[in-house]
């Protein structure tokens, strides 16, 4: 049986509620796509049923033959395709087909990161303890996707709603991040009724 990076932390993370609801969503399919030709990017998008993001520091979502798929902007010619677990091999095949002879690459990076879903009225406050990116809703509305540092650890932060964020963190840093989150939540746990 495969053990997720934060399996040992499930109980301690659950205990952070109601200040912050924290749940790991491990083993999601993740593919790093490098491509710059607009036609190739459009072809890959239509193969997945999602339009690739054209605006820096955003992500898009859609649904198609692989179910719900998100595409995260990582750089001007770099994207991360995220889908449900165990789809990476078939998605890689479809994306390579759509890329065709255009210059680019599709690489399975599913094992690189695990996913943590954070939800609660204090989610932006908790993250602000260790993240210098402006997380005010006017500066970081739903749809924002930034690569930055959280408590000196490289993360991808997706804002998915007013009180909801998704953090992708390298598997080997996940336990450190869980420990930091537990500590950053202390003052909000005390304030919760």
């Amino acid at each position, binding site marked *: 049986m495969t053990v997720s990076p934060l399996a040992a932390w499930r109980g301690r993370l659950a205990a952070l509620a109601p200040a912050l609801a924290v749940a790991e969503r491990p083993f999601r399919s993740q593919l790093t796509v490098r491509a710059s030709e607009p036609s190739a990017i459009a072809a890959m998008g239509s193969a997945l049923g999602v339009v690739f993001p054209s605006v*820096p*520091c955003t992500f898009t979502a859609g649904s198609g033959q692989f179910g719900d798929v998100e595409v995260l902007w*990582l*750089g*001007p010619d*770099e994207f991360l395709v995220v889908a449900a677990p165990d789809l990476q091999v078939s998605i890689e095949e479809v994306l390579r087909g759509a890329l065709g002879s255009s210059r680019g690459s599709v690489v399975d990076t599913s094992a690189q990161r695990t996913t943590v879903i954070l939800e609660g009225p204090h989610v932006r406050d908790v993250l602000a303890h260790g993240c*210098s*990116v402006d997380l005010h809703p006017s500066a970081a509305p739903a749809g924002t996707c*930034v*690569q*930055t*540092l959280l408590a*000196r650890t*490289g993360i991808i932060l997706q804002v998915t709603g007013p009180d909801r964020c998704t953090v992708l963190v390298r598997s080997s840093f996940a336990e450190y991040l869980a420990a930091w989150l537990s500590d950053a939540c202390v003052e909000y746990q005390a304030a919760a009724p």
Partner: protein
Amino acid sequence: MQLIPCPWCGPREEAEFHYGGQAHVAYPEDPSALTDEEWAQYVFFRENPSGPFAERWSHSAGCRRWFNAVRDTRSHDLLAVYRAGEPMPEVLS
């Protein structure tokens, strides 16, 4: 902490960036024709101005792109940032 405006991601903390030295140092067109002294000039010798200085920076913890910036070495003010391949903008020192 100083904010550096990445041309792709906008203002981010300096800790997210990696310094890359002087910008616009062209690779020699015919390296094999260079004398040892000319090669040493290319590899080791850099400008050291007091004032505006064009430098390479990498947004290593963000979009991981290299870009160029003009920084005033006296005040550490970033006078301009521009994407790789773009010409150096005119800046007032």
